[in-house]
């Protein structure tokens, strides 16, 4: 199948690659760029294990074509730590998942983190109900979500504190 050249900025680095038009974004990231953080769980946009950030929106990369991202900016879990506001080694959402035991098998975690990162920009001080609604596109089979809610709350508090310090 004829390939198409695309140019995508992934985690801050421009990637010029030739891809088949049918190549899914998730396969492009995982197989072309070896960014295996985001996973495939369902192929139908339901589980969110493949969630990445495209131009400021949470996107399920298992039902998104790589060619749709030509000229876009993509953020995956691998690029998250570099965005830590306080210069730490982990982003606040990563730290929250660690401190609040927000993960078990870890398979949904990269998608959860990237969704939480975007969600907290959409809503920096959410209620529990808002967190549950805002994160509902990502499934977890291990945690029962309760500690993920706490992890997002932890991150929200930390991000707000960092804002105050840097303001």
């Amino acid at each position, binding site marked *: 199948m004829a390939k198409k050249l695309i140019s995508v900025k992934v985690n801050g680095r421009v990637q010029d690659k030739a891809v088949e038009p049918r190549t899914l974004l998730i396969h492009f990231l995982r197989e072309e760029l070896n960014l295996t953080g985001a996973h495939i769980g369902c192929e139908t946009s339901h589980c969110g294990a493949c969630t990445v950030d495209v131009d400021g929106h949470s996107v399920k990369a298992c039902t998104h074509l790589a060619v749709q991202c030509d000229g876009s900016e993509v953020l995956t879990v691998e690029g998250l730590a570099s965005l830590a506001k306080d210069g730490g080694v982990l982003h606040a959402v990563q730290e929250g998942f660690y401190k609040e035991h927000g*993960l078990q098998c870890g398979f949904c975690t*990269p998608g959860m983190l990237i969704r939480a990162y975007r969600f907290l920009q959409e809503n920096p001080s959410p209620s529990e109900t808002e967190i549950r609604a805002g994160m509902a596109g990502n499934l977890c089979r291990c945690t029962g979500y309760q500690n993920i809610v706490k992890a997002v709350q932890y991150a929200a508090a930390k991000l707000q504190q960092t804002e105050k310090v840097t303001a």
Partner: protein
Amino acid sequence: MNAPTDPTLLERKDALQGLGDSRLRKEDARFIQGKGNYVDDIKLPGMLHMDIVRSPYAHARIKSLDKSAALKVPGVIAVLTADDLKPLKLHWMPTLAGDVAAVLADGKVHFQMQEVAVVIAEDRYAAADGVEAVVVEYEELPVVIDPYAALEPGATVIREDLAGKTSGAHGAREHPNHIFTWDAGDASATNAAFATAPVTVKQHLFYPRVHPCPLETCGCVASFDPVRGELVTYMTSQAPHVVRTVVSLLSGIPESKVRIVSPDIGGGFGNKVGVYPGYVCAIVASIVLGKPVKWIEDRVENISSTAFARDYHMDGEIAATPDGKILGLRVHVIADHGAFDACADPTKFPAGMFHICSGSYDIPAAYCQVKGVYTNKAPGGVAYRCSFRVTEAVYLVERMVDVLAQKLGLDKAEIRRRNFIRKEQFPYKSPFGFEYDSGDYATALEKVLTAVDYTALRAEQAAKRADPHCPTLMGIGLVSFTEVVGAGPSKMCDILGVGMFDSCEIRVHPTGSAIARMGTISTGQAHATTYAQIIATELGIPSEVIQVEEGDTSTAPYGLGTYGSRSTPVAGAAIALAARKIHAKAKKIAAHLLEVGENDLDWEIDRFNVKGDASRHKTMKDICWAAYNNVPAGMEMGLEAVHYYDPPNFTYPFGIYLCVVDIDRGTGETRVRRFYALDDCGTRINPMVIEGQIHGGLTEGFAVAMGQQMPFDAQGNLLGNTLMDYFVPTFVETPHWETDHTVTPSPHHPIGAKGVAESPHVGSIPTFTSAVVDAFAHLGVTHMTMPHTSWRVWQQLQASGVAL
């Protein structure tokens, strides 16, 4: 162990992060940075991809199979069918249950989505193109979906390959679609109890077929090195050593040249215990082609063809006195095993530990019988987050006790109080022969009833029932479950003849850090964190410097794997006992260094002190160094130990769960207002991890009770094999969980631990049913079949005449 009070001792104890500490998880660092290593992340040089041609029909003869077009698809390397596997005698494979299963369909298909052929190609897209191009002609056969219909005289024969076989792995077969009849308990004593009992109740209970549905599907990368004759396979397996033995037996490759690696696993829940055709075909393809071959299922394949759970049709009966004392329990089960008997149970137990169904109650006489039946559905019958068939058993007894309470007009809590095995009766011999290790059910029950103010809840319910305008029906569910986990004693339990022990090897390094290797494999349970905590307390080495490795058969000692809550009860014991061997040697070294006798030493957190003079001591760090340069005469250098632990008994965790639901009389929607879960798993290693496991298990229980099912139409089509249809609760539906605990250690386990991760699944499912049925109890309803979806509950509202 008493907590030290001296501040310096406390500081030293805290530095270890040992038993009882809510230590943060060691495995998280890689997962939160996208550096996990799951099977689909593995990429080997020259790796090919495999995809599977599957049957659209549930029962059909294969008239022809043409792979010529597929072989012309760009990128396709090979297409394998049963005929290609026949010369290797690999077109059928043995199952864990003593049956055989088709690897690739041999002349006929027995269930929808059965594996018919595999395509190997240069990438996954080409493999999928190849699958599309394989042309298979089928001739449809009559389909048998209902296990009762399967046993009718003259029913369509599903397994023609078994023609003439009048007995199977578990005794006589009475019908071509009959697999086994297994029973336990005392039939005549039970029948006698029923013959004279003043009160009897009977209830049919259907436990629907469900799927464990871990977020990561199954898959493998098989890599055969034709020069060295070695096979390495990375696969999603909860039992890598057993797989190595099976692969060696099937392939003829010596076990020493087979290496199975379970990398990070994205959830198992029983789904990743078995050996699936995809694994076998990928291994064959790698051997034939001399290149690594990757096979990764998609979600539809996972739900449709890999191991399901449950599908038990149960008839329960209880005999009792008028004041609610249970005299007898009788159970008959029809178990739908699908087209091949691939149940994952210890060899001698074709219905697993179903005979734990006398539960937490002192029942004098009991009998159960389970009949396994073939139907045109996918094979399986695994324990979905439970020990073998314990979920079914607990559901049965908890529902039946509720039914009896209703018949007698007794409160659910009161009937349990009257029938509990009392604290002083432990160790308790059950009517089915289990010896329960320890328990204190009555104390746990009262703790829960007080915590939720049960009396007030019942008063609120009575007031709502009295008000005809109340928009909701309120239900209270109560369950007091006992599990049997930690399989198991090798005199009773084996898998393919291998006893169900587990193992640990610990090496302590000269500078005082250590590595432990295990026969188990974490699928999210935090073994790397919690196992290190056991060693830390046993040896006085900080858990931070203890590495735990599992899952690689070339480095780990042989173990039976992780399922049935066996990691802590069995492998956890192996760890403690391996550590104690090291501790004993360390004491000898300390005595040698301090020039005193061993009896002159006291152990204190991380060191040996000379009795009466703590200023003369050797820390574990001192001893580690000495073990490599200054040991007593005649002692071997080094500080390491291996222990293979064959448990003397199972462990019996228990819990009391209470649930309050409000059912909308207009829509049938059930809102879980409150769920209170008290668990007793004996000694608690890491309370944070335990709580996380309980949250997860409760959520999976909620999924089963409230929405999961695998419905089939009359043609055997599975009507829901994507996450669009198959219910996995999101953040929004999932209730808030309240957790609590009591601690009743297991007397036979080295650290008193019982296992925990499956209790919340086992215990919560009947609690939800108990709550939903309770909402209708005053209307004469005794049971409602799961899942309790709004539609089903709405139908009950209509039938009971209370819909708004």
